[in-house]
């Protein structure tokens, strides 16, 4: 058993009304990959913030190699050995890779060190990348890199500062399968070099692939730490939710009817030649890797991106969708992947969020009928079981699952009958996921049609009536319910046949 490098002792942190961390004690060993798991709101992010010094715990201590860290802000210079790779990167997009690696820490030369030693920094960066097995040009601009590569730069930056503990917050959320593989390889390399990796993720497969130990948090409480090898997915989920949860998908009895939407040779927004039809009461899945062209296609259907070629037919009639407004009027709705940026107006209240598209419809002589607005909102809050104290609650104060329901409510009030869900359950906890699935079922049972983009294979297979698989900005295949299985989808999505 190797030595303990980072120890969290009895840490408590409360926010108004919530105990985010309740006397948490955890230890991390040198050179291990340690997963932190738990539903949303379990306290994972708060722990990370405490370790990183972004948040000061109310009580307790955090020891790195015996040194107290609690409440001290991490700064670049003190090099105290803890580095965090956040979901949102701290990179300067206009600068090159090597400039970012050495940001604030440049190698200098010349009299008094007034010049930067470009060559030395490039060389060092190259050496660092070689060590980590990353293939990036040190002189490339950050803005020209893909998200995955930006993440590698972040990791390299952390390592260049002699990180002993590297915290990764949902590192694979935006990566494609191939990129995840590279990340896993990198993590193993780091581990071999004695770096401790704290790995926060929702994705079970990765946790079982890469981690040594796994600590479970629930509602700010420490539940247990297990050796990953000695546990199972079911056991872990049981710890997380505190009860048995069947990973099954709710049944539905939707009658699949006539064709409502047909797309022929649709090209644009980087995607080419998409063909499919959508029927009434059907959930059509869009499968494939992130960046394969699924969201891009959805954007065209919603008028958020320009169609270059091809035709869209709604109820057999050819239509054009020049902008989202047109899509909304045609009854096509999009529930975007990034609900905080694209789906909601976080600083406004629930009611405003839900009724924004229908303001004109519920106004007389442009004066809003507030009674009607409230009634429409109330109906949806009840129907979708949105948990909120009042209708005036700001959208940003709701949990992920409830936020997603608000976005959905918006489109139900609008009366949309084709709803595109882009990663409907991203960042939503296990129980809320089930609720979202049930809602989707109810919608198709009521005769609406759904297009669901998802990167979660079980969800895709469990919920879709039919599947369209994308790869490298092209549609590569269609699968019926009978033909669907993990292997065939993966095979198609990997492309290159």
């Amino acid at each position: 058993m190797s030595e303990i490098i980072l120890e969290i002792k009895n840490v408590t942190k409360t926010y108004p009304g919530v105990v985010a961390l309740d006397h948490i004690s955890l230890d991390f060993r040198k050179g291990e990959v340690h997963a932190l798991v738990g539903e949303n709101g379990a306290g994972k992010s708060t722990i990370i913030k405490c370790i990183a010094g972004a948040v000061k715990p109310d009580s307790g201590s955090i020891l790195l190699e015996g040194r107290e860290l609690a409440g001290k802000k991490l700064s670049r210079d003190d090099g105290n050995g803890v580095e965090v790779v956040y979901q949102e990167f701290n990179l300067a997009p206009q600068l090159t890779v090597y400039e970012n690696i050495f940001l604030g820490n440049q190698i200098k030369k010349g009299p008094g060190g007034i010049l930067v030693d470009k060559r030395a920094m490039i060389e060092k960066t190259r050496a660092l990348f070689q060590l980590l097995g990353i293939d990036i040009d040190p002189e490339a601009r950050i803005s020209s890199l893909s998200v995955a590569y930006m993440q590698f730069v972040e990791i390299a930056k952390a390592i260049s500062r002699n990180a002993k503990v590297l915290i990764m917050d949902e590192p694979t959320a935006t990566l494609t399968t191939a990129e995840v593989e590279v990340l896993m390889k990198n993590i193993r390399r780091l581990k071999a070099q004695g770096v401790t990796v704290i790995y926060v993720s929702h994705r079970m497969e990765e946790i079982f692939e890469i981690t040594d130990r796994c600590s479970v948090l629930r509602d700010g409480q420490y539940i247990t730490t297990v050796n990953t090898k000695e546990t199972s997915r079911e056991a872990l989920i049981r710890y997380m939710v505190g009860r048995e949860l069947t990973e099954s998908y709710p049944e539905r009895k939707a009658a699949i009817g006539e064709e409502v939407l047909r797309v022929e040779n649709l090209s644009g927004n980087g995607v080419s030649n998409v063909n499919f039809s959508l029927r009434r009461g059907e959930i059509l899945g869009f499968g494939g890797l992130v960046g394969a062209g699924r969201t891009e296609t959805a954007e065209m259907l919603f008028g958020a991106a320009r169609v270059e070629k091809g035709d869209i037919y709604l109820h057999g009639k050819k239509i054009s969708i020049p902008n989202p407004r047109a899509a909304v009027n045609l009854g096509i709705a999009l529930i975007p992947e990034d609900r905080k940026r694209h789906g909601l107006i976080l600083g406004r209240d629930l009611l405003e969020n839900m009724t924004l598209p229908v303001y004109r419809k519920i106004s007389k002589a442009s004066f809003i009928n507030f009674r009607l607005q409230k009634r429409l909102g109330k109906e949806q809050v009840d129907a979708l079981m949105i948990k909120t104290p009042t209708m005036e609650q700001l959208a940003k104060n709701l949990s992920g699952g409830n936020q997603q329901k608000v976005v959905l409510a918006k489109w139900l009030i609008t009366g949309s009958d084709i709803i595109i869900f882009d990663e409907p359950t991203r960042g939503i906890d296990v129980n809320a996921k089930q609720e979202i699935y049930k809602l989707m079922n109810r919608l198709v049972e009521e005769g609406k049609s759904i297009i669901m983009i998802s990167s979660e294979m079980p969800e895709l297979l469990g919920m879709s009536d039919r599947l369209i698989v994308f790869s490298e900005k092209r549609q590569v295949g269609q699968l019926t319910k009978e033909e669907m299985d993990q292997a065939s989808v993966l095979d198609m999505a990997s492309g290159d046949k």
Partner: protein
Amino acid sequence: MKTLKKIFRGQVLSIYIALIVIVVLFSILSPNFLKLSNILTVLRQVAAMGIMACGMMFVMLLGNVDLSVGTQVSLIGIVMAHCMVKLEMGILPAVLIGICLGLVIGLINGFVVTYCKIPAMIATLGTSWVFEGISYTICNAQPIFGFPSGFSALGQNLLFGIPIPIYLFVLCCIITSVVFNLTSYGRTLYAVGSNSEAAKLSGVNVNFMKITSYVICALFTILASIVFLSRVNSGNASTGIGQEMNVLTACVLGGVCFTGGDGQISGTIAGVMIIGVIQNGLVMLGAGEYVQLMVKGLILIFALSIDSVKKVIQSRKTA
């Protein structure tokens, strides 16, 4: 009680307290400050600024700004004066021409910001120079006076002992407040200002909102310009210069968020009053124009810092 709370929520209460403190301070320092005649002077002075501030709020709620309102006032004023004096038109035709010109100005600003995609601050700085240049060209840098009789009544006469511009200011505030709080246009303004991307994806025509906000801003400026012209009773190309900073400072001081999506008319009124009171109070104390400029500059920076600090605190709370 609830509506009262709504009106005074957030920064608005503290800005009214600040206003009272400033008034008390000046009335101690200068015995003439609280005299009725001086109060009327202050109100008369703030009326035009307040009318412009109402218009500015439409633009600022979307996260934009209109730095050309000052020279808009000059240009519209000069054109109306030119029509009345040099072209010997009646009051009504001249005002109509002024209104048309204002609408065109609003459309130009809206177009430049929306379709040329220039940051509003730079775009309207540019247009403000254009407007200023045109004003000086039209009047050849000479004041124009000798308006038809009756024109000055609007700016100078009293109605029930209160200057007419004050009624106009109050009317503008009521209209603005109603539009902001009760109409679909107003609520959409707040939504777009808070998150224009999400609003667009909810089917809102964001470009329409941007352009119309500039046109509405120009409409208020037209009114302000008429008030200015009749009060001074002479058209001068330098009338409006610097007004945009007064208006901007008043709005920001009143809690209108510089990045959009937040702000109430009740706050702006207080902001306008503070600027007016300070301007007047400094004059009473014998401070010159340059001291006023310094003080106003400091206030603007102070107000903007409040805005930023507020955001920092908010982000800490949510973190």
